């Protein structure tokens, strides 16, 4: 079996991909994702790693029609710029909602979804996408 993507790569990134592990800078008090050993804003290495609640807000989004190989069966695919509750922002797919029903300011939450199917015989990789937040009463 030929893998286009390394299964080990997905496994070692599991905390970042599935639990949204991010970095918080104790010096400048800012957060960023994916986590790094140094603050991308002030350069400090006084960093701690935290886990996101998975809830955020759509700041902007686009509907993509020219999708890369591996994503063509998801076309048209919505990519959102999402600001998480913890203050960091990321780019990810928005699902479970029609594009015309998405608006800036919409609350979303992380959901586990199929990301890429690695060819006809390869593995199926899962990861985080974002869906409209379902408020629990």
């Amino acid at each position, binding site marked *: 079996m030929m893998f286009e993507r390394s299964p080990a*790569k997905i496994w070692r*990134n599991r905390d*970042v*991909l599935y639990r949204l592990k991010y970095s918080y800078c104790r010096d400048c008090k800012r957060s*960023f*994702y*994916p986590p790094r050993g140094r603050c*991308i*804003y002030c350069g400090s290495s006084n960093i701690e790693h935290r886990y996101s609640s998975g809830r955020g807000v759509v700041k*902007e*989004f*686009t*509907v*993509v*029609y*020219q*999708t*890369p*190989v*591996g*994503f*063509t069966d*998801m076309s048209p*695919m919505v*990519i959102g*710029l*999402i600001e998480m509750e913890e203050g*960091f*922002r*990321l*780019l*990810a*797919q928005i699902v479970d909602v029609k594009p015309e029903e998405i608006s800036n300011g919409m609350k979303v939450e992380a959901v586990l979804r199929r*990301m*890429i199917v690695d060819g006809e015989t390869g593995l199926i*990789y899962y*990861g985080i*996408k974002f869906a409209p937040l379902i408020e629990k009463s």
Partner: protein
Amino acid sequence: MRSFIISSSAVKIDRYYDKNFKELAIESIKDLEKKISEPLEPEALIISSVAVEHLDKQSNIAGIIADYLGLRNIRVYRVESGEASGLAAVQIAHSLVSSKAVKKALVIGVDKLSDMPNAKIAELYSYLKDSDYIQIHGVSPLSEAALLAKIYMKTYDYSYEDLFIWPFTMHQNSPDTPHAQLRFKISPDSYKESPILAEPLRLLDSYPFGDGASALYIVSEDVAEEYDVNVSIEGLSSSNDVNDIASREDLLIFSAVRDSFIKTLKMADIELGKLKYIEIHDNYTPNAFIVLESIGLADRGKAPELLQDSMIGSAHVNLSGGLKARGNPWGATGVYQVHEIFSALLGEFKKSVLGEIDYAAAQNMSGCGDVSYSIVLKRVR
């Protein structure tokens, strides 16, 4: 220490199904060789290419191209820095020459994007993004540029139609650019028939996929003195930004573009107003405006208003047609840009528009300003 360009050439960007990347690279130096009086004997060959491993299952391409060029016992290097590889390769050549490691360096940029279907090229383009955490979401520079377009339009109160002046202008420039891929004009409202790639961006907001190769001969001052025409590299620099635009504090300025351009002007010891011709990296329409504003040719949000007949202030921009119409064969693009500004300084490119100029510049970046390189050339004689 300065280095000098004494010859350049470029093949027309097109679909070359009958040529492999080695043959295209060889094709690119034919005109360059004709323009110099002695045999081409570089002591270093620097190859810029982004996609050859993926498209041709080939590594060690600098050594292999040197072999096909008949060059032996020289230094060979391959440079890859995303879409900015071309100008990165020029900077390596300049460093080798100005440090006196070599006296003559040949730079060739080459990529063949028409060797694979568009979806595969779109996949390779997404490789510019962090494969662990960004690319895996299906994010590519296209989706980033689409988000920037929407933010730019809302922040500065533009409609999509307002931004279309950029592709329209680029297609005004390209018909008389000999090496341009798309040598035709478009109408001001042709976007209506252009398919959407990532809304609001349409096909005409993007660059065409094509094959290209361009070459430069960069030499030391004592070698350059033997030639009637030469142009000096007065300044060059580069800078980088975070790879994901989501983490940037200011989405509408490309800090890598701004910083590298400031450093380049400082090294050249000139003011921005001295530059009468600049080639910028316009892989997508919003990026063109953000680049123009990042290098200081326009205040924030003003570039679409100020652009008139491909001029902003006293500077002509992208007379080649830019990536939009000249084309963007990734690893070769920065080399094409330098070929264009070099030729313009010699009065061999766009002379009817530019007349005689002393300084010209190029800016070459990857994605949405993830890394950016810039260069200033000066006509010596």
